[in-house]
Every structure is written in structure tokens, then in C-alpha cells.
């Protein structure tokens, strides 16, 4: 059981610190002063009750005047008539709203701090094409300043993913709190990330250009097919490996199977127990990914999904969810409607496609997730769906719907207390709980602000 050692030895000191933090949070919480004390890395555990607030559950109806109780890291109770347990730290919620912490499934959080010019800290892409054994969590720097900066804006969890190659590796679902990767981890191996070779080689402009340049039209298509076959072979090998392991386990007389670092991590994915994320934006790429997933009996998720709205019926029929990460992208073509990508979420919602909204950013811009969802809401998506698109839906899509994403008893207490609509840019975060721990509203940015704001 992880816990803050200081919390055990000095509860009184911690309570004092907490009181100090609460006091400073009374003004502009985002501007809260206070240095990065021990709570900065791991939060402050305890029993908490947020009383008399508007509860935006994201599960069912909002509760206008309700109470949320947090015990042992979980939401112990939520409702209009919930009593506050003795000994709980009480937060008066009058005029405030409690929402589930937001979740961004399209990040490289902690794998990169400064994308450009600090190569020593960029751990996004491993070499090689087939890296199913690569696990994001093992490259996450828990002390990257981007983590603290992101969470104080209400984003409390992220899927952080490796990139590059044909199989990039495994993405990890993490809390944006913790002194070590293990403290942060919600699910270390949450999804396999795959990039099918681009389908443009089969025709269209790439083939046309190849023709103009005197290349045989079939070359690009052949290269694509060769690469696809590489992935196929690896997945089939993993299947054979899994069967051999099962057989050896069942029958001690069979020869022992040598363990294989590359094949072993693929087993839950080829069995459809965990999802495979396909990065794809164009319709053809997405269709190819879904066909491939059907063929190999994988459980696909589309990440990117710029043109998902063009094939919404198909996505609905196949029940393939989309991590929509291009809401703020410029339109694909000059003659496309100016709001093409703003609108796509509402089109997916109308068609009944499972989707969530992501910034698609490596880290620094992930704090703007609420406004990204807000932009979709300005263009057809209902406000409640926009909220769910960054809370409940990402949790469900990544297979953590029973643990995260809404305010329901029994779920992990990732909660954001705000003085307004969670998605509005003017709204201030007043209190923050991650994994049931109260998190001080300080970050590298508030620290620099405090250091310089009164310089004369």
C-alpha cells in the first residue's frame, strides 16, 4: 500500500499544511501560493467531504445540492442526502461544482518534457518497427513539470503512448499524480499502439506521383503489403506462442517453452482482452485498420479520426470507438468547411459512434483539453456530451469505465471542484483530488508567478 510516510509520522503537521493550503485556495485557487511541499508529489490522503455543491456526475443527472464523500482513495458516497462521516475534512461547496477529473487519451505525458532542443529527455519513439514490448510507463518521468501544470487545470489522468514504427508499444493509463511511476499507474499496459502502413500506396495521388516519377505503380502498394504482412506474422507468432504456453502449462510432460520478450506482451491483445489503438485519420486508413483488426481478431480503437465523421455509420456498425484528437486541426482542404473539425464530434455523437475528445498533444497543451471539448460544443455537440467526451467516455473506451470517469460510489476519487462550468476558460479550479488525495494547486507555473509577480 503506498502512502506518504510523512503522513504517518506527522499527521498534525500535515493537517496544518492542509489548512494552509485550503486557506490559500480561498482566493484565486489557480494562483494559490505555497511552495511544493510533500503533498505536491503524492497529494494528501484522508477522508474528505465536499458538501453543498453542484455535483456534475457525468453518469446520470446533475445533483444540484449534493455531497461527495472520499475515503481510502475512493468515492464512498455521493448524493443529495449523504451524511458527512466523523473526522472528515469538510469542504464547503456552496457556489462550486464538482466534476469528474478529465482524461486525455492522446498524449505522451511524461515521456517528453520539451519536445525540441532537449533530446536527452525525449523518450517517445523507440527504434525499430515492431516494439510490442515497449511500455510507456517505464519512460514516464513523474517529476516532469508538465504533469503538475496539467492537473491543476482539472485533467487528472492521461493515456501516455509511445509513437513511431508499425507497433509503437504499449500505452499506459496514469494518474497525473505520484512520486514514482508506480504511484501514477492506473493500468501499465492499457493498450497496444499500432500504425498500419499508409494505404495511399494503393492508388490515389501517391500512385499517380510514382507514375510521373517513373516508378512502377505497384511499388508503394507492395511495400505496404510487405509491412502489413510483417505485423500479421508477428501476431500469428504470438498466437502460436500463446497456444504453446497454454499447452505446456496444461501438460507438464510437454517440453518447456522458452519465454519470449517480444511475443509475450502481445497475448492479451491478440486474444481481444485489451484494446489495440490504431493511429489513423483518413477514411481509407481507418477502414483498413478495422478490416485488419477483424482479420486478426483484435479489439480496435481509432486514434486521430479526422475523417471518422465520413464513415460514422460504419464505425457504429462495427462498434469501434474513436479518440478524436484533431478537433482544433485546420480543415483538411482549402474547400472544406472552416468548422469541419470542430463539427466532427457532433456528427459522431449523432450517429451513435463511441468517441472521446483528446488534445492529441504530447503534454504541454493537454491542460487545454476542456476548451477543446468546448469548441466541439460550440459546433453542435451538447454540453453534457462534451463533458462526457473528456471524462466518462475516455474512461470507458480505455477499459477503465468501472474505475474512473464519473462521480459514482466505488470509483476512484479523481475530482475537480470549480467555481463554474468545467469546460469554460474563465473557470477556476478550487480544489483537486486525484486517487482520493487532495492535491495542492501549485505547479511550476504558479511557482514562477509567485517568484516574479511583485518584482519591482
Amino acid at each position: 500500500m503506498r502512502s506518504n510516510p510523512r503522513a504517518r509520522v506527522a499527521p498534525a503537521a500535515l493537517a496544518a499544511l492542509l489548512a494552509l493550503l485550503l486557506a490559500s485556495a480561498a482566493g484565486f485557487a489557480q494562483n494559490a501560493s505555497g511552495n511544493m511541499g510533500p503533498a505536491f508529489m503524492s497529494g494528501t490522503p484522508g477522508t474528505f467531504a465536499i458538501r453543498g455543491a453542484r455535483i456534475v456526475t457525468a453518469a446520470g443527472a446533475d445533483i444540484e445540492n449534493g455531497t461527495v464523500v472520499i475515503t481510502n482513495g475512493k468515492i464512498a458516497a455521493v448524493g443529495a442526502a449523504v451524511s458527512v462521516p466523523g473526522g472528515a475534512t469538510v469542504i464547503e461547496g456552496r457556489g462550486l461544482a464538482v466534476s469528474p477529473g478529465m482524461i486525455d487519451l492522446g498524449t505522451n505525458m511524461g515521456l517528453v518534457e520539451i519536445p525540441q532542443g532537449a533530446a536527452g529527455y525525449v523518450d517517445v519513439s523507440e527504434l525499430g518497427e515492431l516494439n510490442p514490448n515497449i511500455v510507456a510507463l517505464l519512460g514516464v518521468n513523474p517529476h516532469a513539470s508538465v504533469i503538475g501544470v496539467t492537473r491543476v487545470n482539472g485533467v487528472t489522468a492521461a493515456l501516455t503512448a509511445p509513437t513511431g514504427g508499425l507497433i509503437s508499444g504499449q500505452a499506459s493509463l496514469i494518474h497525473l499524480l505520484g512520486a514514482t511511476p508506480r504511484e501514477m499507474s492506473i493500468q501499465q499496459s492499457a493498450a497496444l499502439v499500432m500504425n498500419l502502413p499508409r494505404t495511399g500506396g494503393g492508388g490515389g495521388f501517391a500512385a499517380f506521383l510514382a507514375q510521373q516519377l517513373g516508378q512502377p505503380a505497384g511499388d508503394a502498394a507492395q511495400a505496404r503489403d510487405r509491412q502489413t504482412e510483417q505485423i500479421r506474422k508477428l501476431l500469428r507468432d504470438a498466437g502460436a506462442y500463446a497456444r504453446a504456453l497454454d499447452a505446456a502449462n496444461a501438460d507438464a510432460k510437454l517440453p518447456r517453452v522458452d519465454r519470449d520478450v517480444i511475443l509475450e506482451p502481445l497475448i492479451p491483445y491478440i486474444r481481444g482482452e485489451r484494446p489495440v489503438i490504431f493511429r489513423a485519420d483518413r477514411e481509407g486508413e481507418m477502414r483498413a485498420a478495422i478490416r485488419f483488426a477483424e482479420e486478426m481478431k483484435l479489439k480496435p480503437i481509432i486514434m486521430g479520426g479526422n475523417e471518422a465523421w465520413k464513415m460514422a455509420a460504419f464505425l457504429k456498425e462495427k462498434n469501434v470507438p474513436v479518440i478524436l484528437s484533431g478537433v482544433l486541426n485546420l480543415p483538411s482542404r482549402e474547400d472544406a468547411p472552416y468548422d469541419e473539425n470542430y463539427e466532427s464530434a457532433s456528427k459522431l455523437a449523432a450517429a451513435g459512434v463511441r468517441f472521446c475528445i483528446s488534445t492529441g498533444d504530447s503534454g504541454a497543451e493537454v491542460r487545454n483539453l476542456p476548451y477543446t471539448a468546448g469548441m466541439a460544443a460550440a459546433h453542435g455537440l451538447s454540453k453534457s456530451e462534451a463533458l462526457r467526451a473528456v471524462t466518462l467516455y475516455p474512461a470507458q473506451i480505455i477499459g477503465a469505465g468501472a474505475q474512473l470517469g464519473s462521480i459514482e460510489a466505488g470509483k476512484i476519487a479523481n475530482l475537480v471542484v470549480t467555481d463554474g462550468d468545467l469546460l469554460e476558460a474563465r473557470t477556476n479550479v478550487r480544489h483537486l483530488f486525484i486517487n482520493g488525495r487532495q492535491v495542492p494547486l501549485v505547479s511550476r507555473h504558479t511557482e514562477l508567478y509567485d517568484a516574479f509577480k511583485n518584482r519591482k
Partner: protein
Amino acid sequence: MRKLSAFILALATLVPSFAGAGVRAQGRRGRQPQPTRPAAEPGGESPAGGAGETVIRNATILTASHGTIQNADIHIRNGKIAAVGTALRVGAGARVIDATGKFVTPGIIDAHSHAAADAINEGTLSVTSMVRIQDVMNPTDINVYRALAGGVTALNILHGSANTIGGQNAVVKTKYGRPIREWFFGAPPGIKFALGENVTRKNPFLLPGAPVPARRYPATRMGQEQILRDAFTRARNYKRGWDEFRANRAGAPPRRDLQLEPLVEVLEGKRLVHAHCYRSDEMLMLLNLADEFGFKVKTLQHVLEGYKVAPEIARHGAGGSLFADSWAYKIEAYDAIPYAAAVMTRAGILVSLNSDSSERGRRMNIEAAKMMKYGGLTEQESLRLITLNAAIQLGVEARTGSIDVGKDADIAVWNGHPFSVYSRVDHTFIEGEMFFDRARDLAMREELKRERAELEKAEPNQAPGGAGGALTPGGPARRRPGHQDDDDADAPRVRKRNAGSHEDDDHPADRSNDEGGHDNEK
């Protein structure tokens, strides 16, 4: 030969500004016959619509200069704001916009943009004060239309940051589709300076075709100071030569120098300096040098660490034009904080926000809204960051930047509070003409779809090799991440998707691949 011509035709469909095919209707007039087009409206409206009267009724008006006026009208006549008040009487023929429940703001001024510019950096020398944005502007850059759809009515179009002295800027109205000369409205001339990382070219950008990163003096911040000192020393000498010639009226005039002339204008206070900078020390270097040579820096652009030296910036009198909250995209952006606009405003610095990005330039209202949270600026202070303050920084506050009688009718009408993420623009007026109308935009979409379908059926647009079906050149082949700015459009493809952000405009390559969809074939 047939192949080549088919190739060119195919390209023509891909690059609509080249052919006028399948593109948004406004602004393409005169390039290609557009038989199915509704009457008029090349950019803006018909002359009648522009010259006529308009009244916007019953709006909530955020003036940016004198607070918010509830349930009031704006009377627009001859392109100007003729009156603001309740139950205004207007001419019988005036167009009436019922803005009940809607909000009106001044048109947004983006104080740092590269939209409409077909070239950004003349990267060969580090002092290219002779080059001018106005010579390379594309009046039908679709990003200008997209900016209009975000309520933007004026841009400060700047050179990039490859050079210590980049070139002469263009302050224009976003009159999409109109001849470029109509975009200019008498702003004082300016010039782009740049300091720091981009100028040193330490980033390993492989210029197209170049096997190694191109290096060029200056490679350090020390060298940048010397480049500036040398340039202004030469400019001072040059100015002295002219002054003496004019005083004496004897001998031969000095040899005309197009590089130094703009710098002489800077020394004379006739040309505004907009200086790209990130780190506080380089800001101080420039301000000290400017004090020494006796000129003022009008704005520090980006000025990410300006909050650290706010008192010094205030003492010099420079303004600051910032990103709202971008940070950490490169080393020198690591200390950027979203509270900077508030800190600098409170230190007495005139602050604006800018996009430096055709993507972000469409949602500057939300960038401004964030400043109410980060540091607690008031609603009007925040709105001024994208309107009146930018106008003052560009020397055009007499014409635009606020809702005041006598100013140009540069106005955005929003369907909700402009600082709400749930709001969008319904109309954008420039000088009384409606250059963006969401209803009209929606109405034209079906027609554009038909036109595109027709074009795709044309023989030259068919895929080769009997693959069947039309060529599908479109599609987001290249992602445009939310924070990727215009300057990154040229970035070689070795760069990672999220690796870039602002103003990494150290790429002298052409920018014709700004639209996604065909760049991966270039």
C-alpha cells in the same frame, strides 16, 4: 507530354488558389468562371452592401474602451460606427441585424500573424530589412477566411524569426478576396526583429536538400547583439551622410541603401520595431541597445519571459505581445507562464495576445478568456488584449480596436458571450461590410459539394491505371496539431508531430504546402 499536362491539371485541383477550382466561392472571382456562384460577395459583400447603412439591434456590446452596454444598437454608416445607443433611428434602407441575445465586440486584431504571406523568411542574411511582406501577399489565403470566421478583422503580418532583422511587416484588414491594396489602411510602417534560439539556428532543421543544418552568423546571442550594433552603426553613418548632404546641398548624394533606409526610419521614430524574443536577458540586451541608439522598441513579440523583467520593459516603454499559455515546446519556452499577461499588465506594460498561427488565430477569444483565470484580469482588460491594446501597439487605435463612434465599423457578432467556449461568430464586419456570415457560409456548402463532385468527374482528375473512381487528393495527410503554427508548415518531415510549436520559422523554403493534403507528395 500528356502525362505532364495531366499532372499539372491534377495539381491545379490540389492547389485551388492556382486554379480557382472547387474552392470557397468568395474571393475567387476573376480567376475562373464560377457560373453557379450566387451574385456578388467577393470577400465581403457587394459595393451596395458595404456602402449602405447597417444597424445591429439590441445587442450586448463589449466596447473594449468603455465597458459593456446592455441591449443597445450600433449604427454603421459609410463604413464607420455612426452611433451607439438604444432605439437608434436609421435610414429606411438600412440593413437590420437583430442581435437580441447576441454579443458584439470590436473585430479582433491579431498582433502577430503569418497568414496571407507566401514567404516568411529571407534567411540568407541576418539583416534583411529591405524585404517586405506586402510584396508576397496572397489575397485568397483560406486561412484569412478562417480567421474572419473567428471574428478577426486585422492582422499584423510579420516576417519570421530566422533573421536578426527580418523585414517590413504589413498591418492590414482581413479583406479576404479583395485586391491586397484594399487591405491596407494607413498603419505606420513596422519591422520585425528577432532574438534568441531561432536566429542562432541551433535547432537541427535540415533545410530541404541540405545534408547538414545550415549555419550562419550569428550563432550565439552575443553575435546577435553585434549584428544589431553593426546594423545601427551603419544606419547612423548613413543617416549622417544624408543629413549632411541635405544641409549642404553640395557634392554627390550618398549611395542609396535599401537595407539601411528602414533602419534610419527606426532611428527617426518613423518605423515601429516588433522584436521576437523569448528569454529575459535577450530582451534587456535589445532594450539597452535601443536606449543607446536612441530609438524605442514598440513591441516585444512573444516575450515569454517578459514577466521576469516587467519593470525594465515598462521603463523603456515597450509593449508586449504574448501567447496566452503556450510553453515548453522548446528550451527557451520552458519558463513561459500563462500569468505573464497579467504580471506585465500590472507593471504598466501595454499587452496584447497574438496567435502566430493560422490555427490559433481562429479562437483568440478563448485565448483572451483564459487571462481572466490566469492572473485575474478583468473582462475588459482581457478583451483589450485582442482588440484595443493591439491597435495601440500597431498605431491604428484611431481607426479600429474598440466600439466607439467615428471608428471603422470593424465588428464581430457572437451568438453568446465571446469568452464562452460555447460561443461562435455569426457575422464579421470590416468597415461596415460583412466579410463573414455564418448563415451564408452554411448555405454555400451544398453548392461547393456539387462543384467538387463535378470537378472530380472530369477526365484529368481520374486516377491513373484504371484504378477507378476519382483521384482523391484531399484528406489530412499531414496533421496540424493545435499548437503548431504557420511557421512550422515548412518544417522538414523529419520533425515529430508534436515536436514543434511557435515561430520556428527558420525555414526559407516556400510555403505553398500550407494546406494539408498534398504536402506528403511534395
